[in-house]
């Protein structure tokens, strides 16, 4: 007399399935499938064949997995397309909010002489390489033309504290202008901290300014990378970090490492160094092939395979620390995991598609020239103006943001239309880097089979997926990083 129907009553009558857009890659006998929103699942080779040829029954655990992950649907199911639309929209939301990061290169002067430096240094004594107030004001005009509701102004150099007076002016003028525009406005100074003074700290405290600095690892490693008169770059950095934490707050200072050949065998020491300085996480960065790095041949020493070992060991160590109750984050993985495990786009300019040049971040050089990125500016220093978008004195916001110099690389490097990328199952986790590819191969798209960018990213994706699927503890840590 039961009015309840069995489970079978709720199965479809026929095995009529529609494919939803998906991509696949074969990985060690299994097949990775990613849907349009970048959600992944791993199938056995047989399971994949059944999917590929739509030889699927009305119901099975495979069918349920595929339906839940929006890889297949029944004709007449509305929810899958509604949800894919929602997820896609979320992923691309940031496009309406260009440009979030505005970099002001306030001075090219610097008292360090780091071999890999992307910034061409000039000596300390001349004022020819400082940004003028007039230029800075024009830069601010550009800043507030951006539609983004959240704006970050970052001061870089050389060593920006050598032109601290201008930083003070820009901060105050920006805040004044913001009374009208009402954006969520933030400031960062990227400094080596050697010139940190109480006056600077005081100003930063009053205006809620964040500090970003360089910390390559233990003293000998850091100082070797960063020669300065006095040979105390590390000591200054560490002391500076301590002072900033105490004056501005623990979350107001972050550090970026640069990897050189000398770093590759010492990842645990480097992580320990970050831990000792009270930093909550580290970004395991590859060395980029720009600026002085190319000139002094330190890039040629760089070995992609060794860097992967460095990264894997560093990540393993950080997971081990987490197991011991230390909440340390690896930021490169964290950016990628956000793309893998949520619909959010973290907006890390080197790993987005469309590329982050111009629309994610833009650079105003000390002399008023406008560049699509840090690296684009470096190329100009080496004589290649490809990524020069214009000049603050002569070009309007429209001129710059719709210039061929910006639109061509954006369009050509757009991954979903690039060869190999358009078919790649990892594409949702990846990005375009037209500047990198231009610098290494001569065009904005590059040849992905030969691209270290591609190889490295693919290796990272596979590694993270492997851990996510097979290591429950790593999975829980990764979910936490993705959710931040």
């Amino acid at each position, binding site marked *: 007399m039961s009015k309840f129907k069995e489970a079978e009553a709720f199965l479809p009558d026929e095995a009529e399935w529609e494919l939803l857009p998906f991509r696949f890659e074969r990985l060690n006998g299994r097949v990775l499938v990613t849907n349009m*929103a970048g959600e992944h699942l791993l199938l056995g080779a047989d399971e994949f064949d059944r999917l590929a040829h739509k030889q699927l029954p009305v119901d099975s655990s495979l069918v349920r997995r595929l339906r839940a992950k929006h890889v297949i649907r029944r004709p007449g199911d509305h*929810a899958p397309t509604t949800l894919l639309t929602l*997820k896609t929209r979320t992923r691309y939301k940031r496009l309406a909010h260009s440009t979030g990061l505005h970099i002001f290169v306030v001075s090219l002067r610097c008292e360090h002489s780091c071999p890999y430096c992307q910034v061409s240094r000039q000596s300390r004594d001349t004022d020819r390489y400082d940004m003028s107030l007039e230029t800075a004001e024009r830069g601010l005009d550009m800043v507030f033309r951006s539609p983004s509701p959240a704006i970050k102004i970052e001061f870089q150099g050389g060593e920006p504290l050598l032109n601290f007076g201008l930083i003070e002016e820009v901060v105050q003028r920006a805040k004044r202008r913001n009374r009208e525009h009402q954006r969520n406005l933030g400031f960062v100074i990227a400094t080596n901290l050697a010139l940190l003074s109480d006056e600077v700290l005081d100003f930063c405290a009053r205006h809620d300014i964040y500090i970003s600095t360089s910390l390559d690892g233990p003293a000998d490693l850091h100082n070797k990378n960063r020669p300065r008169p006095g040979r105390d770059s590390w000591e200054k950095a560490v002391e500076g970090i301590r002072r900033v934490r105490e004056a501005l707050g623990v979350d107001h200072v972050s550090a970026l490492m640069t990897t050189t050949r000398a770093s590759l065998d010492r990842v645990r020491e480097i992580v320990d160094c970050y831990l000792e300085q009270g930093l909550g996480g580290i970004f395991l960065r590859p060395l980029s092939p720009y600026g002085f790095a190319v000139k002094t041949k330190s890039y040629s020493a760089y070995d992609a395979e060794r860097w992967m070992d460095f990264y894997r060991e560093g990540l393993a160590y950080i997971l081990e620390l987490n197991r011991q109750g230390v909440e340390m984050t690896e930021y490169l993985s964290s950016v990628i995991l956000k793309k893998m*495990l*949520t*619909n959010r786009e973290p907006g890390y300019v080197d790993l987005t598609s469309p590329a982050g040049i111009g629309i994610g971040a833009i650079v105003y050089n000390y002399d008023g020239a406008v560049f699509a990125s840090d690296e684009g500016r470096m190329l100009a220093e080496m004589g290649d103006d490809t990524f020069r978008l214009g000049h603050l004195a002569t070009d309007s916001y429209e001129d710059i943001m719709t210039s061929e110099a910006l639109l061509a690389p954006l369009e050509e490097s757009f991954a979903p239309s690039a060869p190999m990328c358009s078919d790649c199952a990892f594409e949702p986790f990846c990005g375009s880097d037209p500047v990198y590819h231009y610098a290494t191969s001569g065009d904005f798209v590059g040849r992905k089979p030969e691209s270290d960018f591609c190889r490295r990213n693919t290796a990272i994706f596979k590694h993270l997926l492997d851990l996510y699927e097979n290591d*429950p503890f790593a999975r*829980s840590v990764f979910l936490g990083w993705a*959710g931040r």
Partner: protein
Amino acid sequence: MIALRGRSAAFSVDEPLGRAVWMIADRRSPAPRRQGMAFLVEGDAEPPGGFDLYLVKDVERAPEGKPWIALPPLLQHLSAGDVISASETGEHLRVLWRHRSPMNSVLLTERCDHYCLMCSQPPKEREDDWLLDNARELIRLLPRSTPGIGFTGGEPTIYGDRLIELLGLCRNLLPHAGVHVLSNGRRFADFGFASSWAAVRNPRMMVGIPLYGAEPTLHDYVVQAAGAFDETVRGIVNLGEVRQRIEIRVVVHKQTAPALPEIAEFIARNLPFVEQVALMGLEMIGFARANMDDVWIDPTEYGAELNEAVSLLARRRIKTMIYNHQLCLIDRELWPFTVRSISDWKNEYHPECVECSVRDRCGGFFFSAKYKVSDKIKAIPADEAALQPALLDI
């Protein structure tokens, strides 16, 4: 178990009562308010005049010449501030509101377009609009300071615009009340209805919608309605579009437990805009009893799935709560997610609980647990209870 309805053995109502819903007053209630109030006679003093209805605990004290109802033994717990409904003759009484209860749920209808395997309020097809009318009267009687009110069914949205009106009334008369409405969510697939809902403009209002699968076959089976999943999900999306507060509820039982991680992943990835997710233990009444073989599972058997589900949600910053699970049956790491959620009138305890050091933090059992309970219930000794929650606590 606190009784919520009863039959009066003795009553004297000469003319049909002019109203169904009455708030109980006593000596301490403010004198001028009389409309809709029923005076509760206690003690020896002469009851004041001017009330349209008197309630007595002791028949001897029934007032002469006035309409009165003697409270049956099971309803002797009633006190001033509670609200009852009485049948026209006064014979049948229902408790609509217990002012001492932290959360009262108001039943709006027993009609439903679903037929869930484990439904604790099995649907009835008869027209019961009078429940909606009673709810309206109840809202008019409640004090302005009422902190919270719940609306349940059956499926409340069958009333369509009349439900919206009721919620509007609730917002206007009870401006401080958190309002929690339970619904299967399907009607919100009609964007017009979702918009009307949003137009109530009550920031304290939230809808609780159940989801029992990450894809149609499981969910539709559990709720016994083809096409339910697709419509419910679209309803949830519409509510999200109009920025309404949503709770997703997952009742964990034999059918849903194996799919719990998939359901959690589905919510985290497709419905991350919801305010919270409630993972709920089974209440062994109504259809759950009839379908015990298909729904009963010892909670210790789905510990891994529960852990995984919480991790998948909470780590991605979706507020996750575990309801109706005894602390001794789940991992220590999950204790921070538990909520003491069993309505007080259903609360009971097991003999094993007498010695338990965390009994006060535990939700206890539904009264219906007498029909089926895990044999793994075990008192937690004091030294174990002191263990810190682990890393999962965010």
